[in-house]
């Protein structure tokens, strides 16, 4: 191709493709793509769909494990939990839409991850959220984003009847422009109902289920998700989809009934890049072609152009393949659930995605070009030569008495009670929830502290794995699998590439050491504003198995007279800690090292003793160090405690996932470092502080309530 072609034809640049990528398209197609084809290719080759800057790196993550039923590449990963049941789960980002329109962005983030889970045949039984915003005390925008994103998550999850059982929120100024909204969903399925997305069987029928196709979300994957945010984002609002949980509720029940009746060959949700992506992935998975007639697709606006129909990101739609003889029964089930179902095409053996409109072929692209030919780039990582993130403003001086330090930490936005947020979510619908938020760490957990990853990407990312495993250990659950969402800045910048590479290495090493496979996930790059990148934020979601729900552990001290022990190799430091932030220190420095193999043994020991009842409470030590962990155990149990910390231990230093505060009868704690006893109405830490539990609670309850 001569370079003059490019100057004549700049459509591809407007769609986010580089000149090199366009040349590659010309070469692979052997001709110039028409407008419809180019729109489709620009989306499939976007970072969001094609993972072109991250795919090679993600190969580093361990994916094998004896419990794994479905790994990366499906709509969601799935693990065996015994008894013929599988748990499917995935975490996904909806960051850019939420930064532009937080209510709908967050709501459709939940809607999208729910579809991923029921697309594999699992009934969604739990949602968790991982949210990041700017500082709420100083930023009106951050309070608005928090308020609206939480309302949007509640709107969707509550209305569709899936409990929101947990989550995490951090506030840091680096998220001021780029908030993060990651949603994780967990579903339950009998093994026999699990279904893959691969289309099969030439002559089989392609049926579109669910909502009408409209102009919403056009180009969302390329316009929003694969570029930095900047001025003029208001104009991108039409690229944000609108959620309709009622339609999805019907779609969910309908799809599960179709699967129970064995009426489907394959099922796929429509997410980013809409029909283009769903059809390409189904065809690619099965090594077949698909022909789709756009005139059959029910439209919200009659005059939609073919490319608009192909890339629309209208929500609450699913694509399925069925045998011709099943179509009648399929349509009957859909009618009963009042779900729109339309035959829009068929499976072919051409290997191409062929699109018809009014009798004309408006696109005909080999599926291999759409999926396999997407260019993959090697990152050019380089450690940053100077500090990337500035110091936050100091909130406390560092000279105050330890009691005041503890109260300041408990009231800080990152540590304070999440009650004002989780009270807006329904955590109990479906009657499967045995521990509500604030009662325990969880059998499904989500973690990822960006400030610590900013300090030390490799150890910080590994800590997210340790912390999830520690949370599971506290309720007595054994890790089965992990999903992750990598939220980073622009990977084309060497220092972001370095953060990403180091973080993936940290995750991989921790997963290998703990024997936890990665069964799926999502990457969200280009989270940058003119002021710079977000903290590198790998969010880890881990699912564990709890043999007896009746024995699920709690975090609160349970009985006066119980001994309290510090379990685990705990050598915390102030680097990257919540206290360092309150004192105005920048996120720099090396995090404490960890022997992951030894840590795994500690987690197993805690798990076994929670299960046996030897520990009546267990809580991992995370933000704010051992002092905050002790305070949280007192608040949750409504009981005081008297302890003496080991000599030289920094009461506010952090090393997440390494150690636990446990309590129980003294004989059950034999062999552990007993540091005190439960009782009284105060938390007393010898030679350090003495505070009434009511005072601790007040500080912790007030922190976020004043801001929401």
């Amino acid at each position, binding site marked *: 191709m001569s370079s003059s072609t490019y100057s004549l034809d700049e459509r591809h640049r407007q769609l986010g493709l580089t000149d090199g990528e366009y040349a590659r398209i010309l070469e692979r197609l052997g001709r110039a793509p028409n407008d419809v084809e180019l729109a489709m290719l620009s989306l499939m080759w976007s970072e969001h769909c094609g993972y072109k800057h991250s795919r090679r790196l993600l190969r580093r993550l361990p994916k094998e494990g004896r419990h794994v039923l479905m790994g990366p590449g499906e709509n969601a990963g799935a693990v065996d939990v015994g008894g013929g049941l599988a748990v499917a789960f995935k975490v996904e980002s909806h960051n850019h839409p939420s930064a532009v329109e937080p209510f709908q962005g967050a709501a459709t983030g939940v809607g999208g991850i729910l579809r991923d889970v029921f697309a594999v045949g699992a009934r969604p039984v739990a949602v968790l959220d991982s949210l990041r915003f700017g500082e709420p005390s100083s930023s009106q925008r951050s309070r608005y984003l928090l308020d609206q994103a939480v*309302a949007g998550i*509640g*709107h969707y999850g*509550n*209305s*569709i*009847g899936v409990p929101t059982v947990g989550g995490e929120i951090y506030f840091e100024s680096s998220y001021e422009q780029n908030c993060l909204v990651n949603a994780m969903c967990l579903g339950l399925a009998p093994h026999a109902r699990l279904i893959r997305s691969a289309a099969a069987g030439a002559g089989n029928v392609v049926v579109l289920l669910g909502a009408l196709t409209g102009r919403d979300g056009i180009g969302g994957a390329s316009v929003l998700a694969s570029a930095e945010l900047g001025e003029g984002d208001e104009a991108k609002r039409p690229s944000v989809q609108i959620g*309709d*949980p*009622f*339609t999805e*509720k*019907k779609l969910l029940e309908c799809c599960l009934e179709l699967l129970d009746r064995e009426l489907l060959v394959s099922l796929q949700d429509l997410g980013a890049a809409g029909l283009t992506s769903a059809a390409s992935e189904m065809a690619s998975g099965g090594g077949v072609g698909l022909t789709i007639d756009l005139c059959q697709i029910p439209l919200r606006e009659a005059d939609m152009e073919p490319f608009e129909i192909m890339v629309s990101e209208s929500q609450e739609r699913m694509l399925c393949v069925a045998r011709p003889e099943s179509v009648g029964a399929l349509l009957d089930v859909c009618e*009963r*659930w*009042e779900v729109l179902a339309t035959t829009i095409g068929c499976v072919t053996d051409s290997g191409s995605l062929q699109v018809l409109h009014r009798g004309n072929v408006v696109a005909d692209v080999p599926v291999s070009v759409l999926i396999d030919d997407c260019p993959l780039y090697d990152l050019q990582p380089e450690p940053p030569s100077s500090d990337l993130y500035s110091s936050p403003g100091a909130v406390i001086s560092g000279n105050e008495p330890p009691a005041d330090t503890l109260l300041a930490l408990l009231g800080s936005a990152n540590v304070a009670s999440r009650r004002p947020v*989780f*009270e*807006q*979510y*329904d*955590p*109990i*619908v*479906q*009657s499967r*929830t*045995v521990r*509500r938020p604030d009662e325990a760490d969880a059998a499904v957990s989500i973690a990822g502290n960006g400030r610590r990853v900013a300090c030390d990407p490799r150890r910080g990312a590994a800590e997210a794995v340790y912390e999830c495993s520690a949370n599971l250990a506290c309720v007595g659950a054994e890790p089965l699998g992990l999903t992750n969402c990598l939220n980073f800045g622009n990977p084309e910048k060497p220092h972001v590439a370095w953060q990403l590479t180091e973080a993936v290495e940290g995750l991989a090493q921790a997963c290998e050491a703990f024997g936890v496979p990665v069964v799926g996930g999502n990457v969200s790059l280009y989270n940058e504003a003119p002021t710079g990148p977000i903290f590198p934020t790998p969010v880890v979601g881990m699912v564990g198995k709890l043999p007896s*729900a*009746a024995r699920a552990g709690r975090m609160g001290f349970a009985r006066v007279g119980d001994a309290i022990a510090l379990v685990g190799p705990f050598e915390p430091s102030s680097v990257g800690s919540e206290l360092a932030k309150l004192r105005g220190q920048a996120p720099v420095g090396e995090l404490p090292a960890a022997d992951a193999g030894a840590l795994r043994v500690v987690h197993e020991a805690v798990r076994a003793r929670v299960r046996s009842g030897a520990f009546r409470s267990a809580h991992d030590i995370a933000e704010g160090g051992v002092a905050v962990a002790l305070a949280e155990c007192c608040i949750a149990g409504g009981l005081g405690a008297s302890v003496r910390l080991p000599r030289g231990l920094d009461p506010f230093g952090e090393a997440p996932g390494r150690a636990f505060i446990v309590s129980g009868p003294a004989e059950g704690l034999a062999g552990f470092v007993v540091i005190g006893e439960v009782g009284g109405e105060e938390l007393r830490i010898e030679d350090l502080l003495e505070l009434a539990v009511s005072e601790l609670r007040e500080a912790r309850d007030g922190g976020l309530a004043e801001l929401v």
Partner: protein
Amino acid sequence: MKFGIVRFPGSCDDVDALQAATRVGDAVLLWHADHDLQGVDAVIVPGGFSYGDYLRAGAIARFAPVMVQVEEFARAGGLVLGICNGFQVLCEAGLLPGALLPNLSLKFLFRQVELEVVRGVGPFTGACETGERLSIPVKHTTGRFYAPDHELDRLEANGQVMLRYTRGNNPNGSLRDIAGVCSEFRNVFGLMPHPEHAVDPLRGSVDGLKIFESMRAHVEQHVLA
């Protein structure tokens, strides 16, 4: 004793109610589009967001085909329990007095609340003592009970106010702390708290079971006997 739980499109706590009712008797789901109550002894209209509740909570479900039979059943003296969205639907249908308005906070709220049994007699609270405290969760956006003053006076005089939020526990601004009311003939009862989510010690409280036990006792003594 057979309970029937109505399933509208958008019902969310239908299976929860089914499981709770199964603890005290038999229970079946009743499909919204069928004109058939399958010979049940009591009907439960469950929580959720029937038809999305995009118009006004309960306003569309009230016109569902199955509601014709539910209304007939109620007017003939059959026991009908409305929980949360079900309470809203029964108010819309005119089977219960008053209306449910958006919470004063205008936000969805989930919280375990304490209730006082105003009257421990009748088909829905007969298994409770008058003045007994129950711990049951609420979860709703539209749960503020409202009726004009003279209507509230009349309800109280008639003994139709069955449950109140205890002092400091009113989660939504309901007038006179009303959490549950019954119809004039006491056979239709609606409440915003979710008794079906308080039936299992593993999940925190079993106080809600008393509502279902009251219904069973009433049916066994007065209907099946």
